[in-house]
């Protein structure tokens, strides 16, 4: 009898029910028919049901914690930057400060922000570390190449930033003296 009742309970959610059709693992909070599949729960006072609204970003392309999620994590990727970075310092600054893009300031100290993160090294005078552009590019693209336990997101490998975005960041960081 109980499985019936649980089926009722989950049926009314009507979310992951369709996830199989979308070829995604089960148990994800998604609406496979929506433009942004990732859904955020909204708690409605005095109601026994959750409301769902789209998240600001679709997160379904990366692995989740679900046991049914068999998609592999992207492995560390070695890059090769040859020649000058050809980056734009001003664009790099914008990417570093934008929470929706680089968000470097969440973990690193950068000029012009009074409340920086302290998880990563301060980047106030980055140029003085004396790193080559290619090293800096690799560190942003996929820091796991240098340190498998690196906390830093692999911005290139995971498709968070484009090649030009990373080049702009390299130029910005190398301008901090």
């Amino acid at each position: 009898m109980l499985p019936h009742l649980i089926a009722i309970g989950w049926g009314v959610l009507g979310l992951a029910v369709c996830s199989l059709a979308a070829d995604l693992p089960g148990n994800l909070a998604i609406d496979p028919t929506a433009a942004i599949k990732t859904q955020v729960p909204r708690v409605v006072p005095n109601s026994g049901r959750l409301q769902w609204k789209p998240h600001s970003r679709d997160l379904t392309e990366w692995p989740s914690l679900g046991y049914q999620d068999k998609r592999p994590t992207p492995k560390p990727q070695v890059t090769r930057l040859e020649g000058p970075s050809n980056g734009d310092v001003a664009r790099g600054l914008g990417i570093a400060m934008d929470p929706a893009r680089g968000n470097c300031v969440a973990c690193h100290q950068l000029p012009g922000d009074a409340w920086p993160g302290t998880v990563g090294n301060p980047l106030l005078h980055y140029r003085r570390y004396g790193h080559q552009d290619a090293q800096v590019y690799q560190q942003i693209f996929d820091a796991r190449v240098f340190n498998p336990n690196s906390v830093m997101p692999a911005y290139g490998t995971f498709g968070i930033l484009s090649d030009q975005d990373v080049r702009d960041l390299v130029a910005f960081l190398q301008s901090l003296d």
Partner: protein
Amino acid sequence: MIRIAGFPLVWGASTLLGLALVQPPALSAEPAPYREMERPLETYIPHASGDRKFSNTYRYWKDPKNLDWRLAGNPDENWKLNWKFMDPPFNQAIHGGHFALDRGESLYKFLNRGGSFAACLGAGKGGLKGLRTSYPRYDKTLKRVVGLEEKIQICGAIEGRVLENGSYDNSAISLYIAGFSKGMPMRIDVSKGPLKEAFERGRRLYHTRAGRMNFACATCHIHNVGKHLRGNTVTTPFGDVVHFPVYRTKYELQSLQLRFMECNLDTGTQPLLPGSPAYTDLEVFLSALSNGYAVTVPSERD
């Protein structure tokens, strides 16, 4: 792997499938996908005092009656109190948690007018007293580990009421039930059996990196406790579950598994549905890290 949550069950077949559906998550034959783990996977002491080996802030918050209020007033020291200064009885003001408590009481009394709702939830002779402190627990009927909110959903359905896991009404009932355990320490026995297995799976999940940023819970909450992520300071995972479901100004009422969803979203990871086996295992793991710490409801957070 075959589990109930999230799957549309075929009505006629569900009885036949029943046996298979209630199996604990079995490992399928296919190899595990490539995942990166936060190391080391320390041997956790399933007790709030286990924090001594990690952030070592336990000394600041272990006794909620004797908090050092100078820490609470200092943005650099605040985090050491693990937000316990926000829990009752320190904040006597009426907040959303009190309204939820009233809602939970009336719903509970209505659903339990025949006494079957309490029995379904596993209340013994002592009634609701102490019930909260022994959830998540192994459910003999379902033959798997369930959290309190998932059980409320199941028992509510038996009484003919939709109480989705994570919904306001579900969490309000959970809060009302937790109120009977106010001041009582959590006591989840993860030393043997299915709860131990769930604890171990939860511990592993806690260290498993996932999502767009490739973060695990442990990336911040084990390795970077006390450090700043802009305006936020990372706190310890120990002693944290005792104040859930919690009133949040942006969430009305937030169950622990809804909080997991928010954690996932904040770190760019696709969240799971409340009641998912992975979330329940995480709940077991974190509940065990609150063992010995008193239930404090109704609490509030910003």
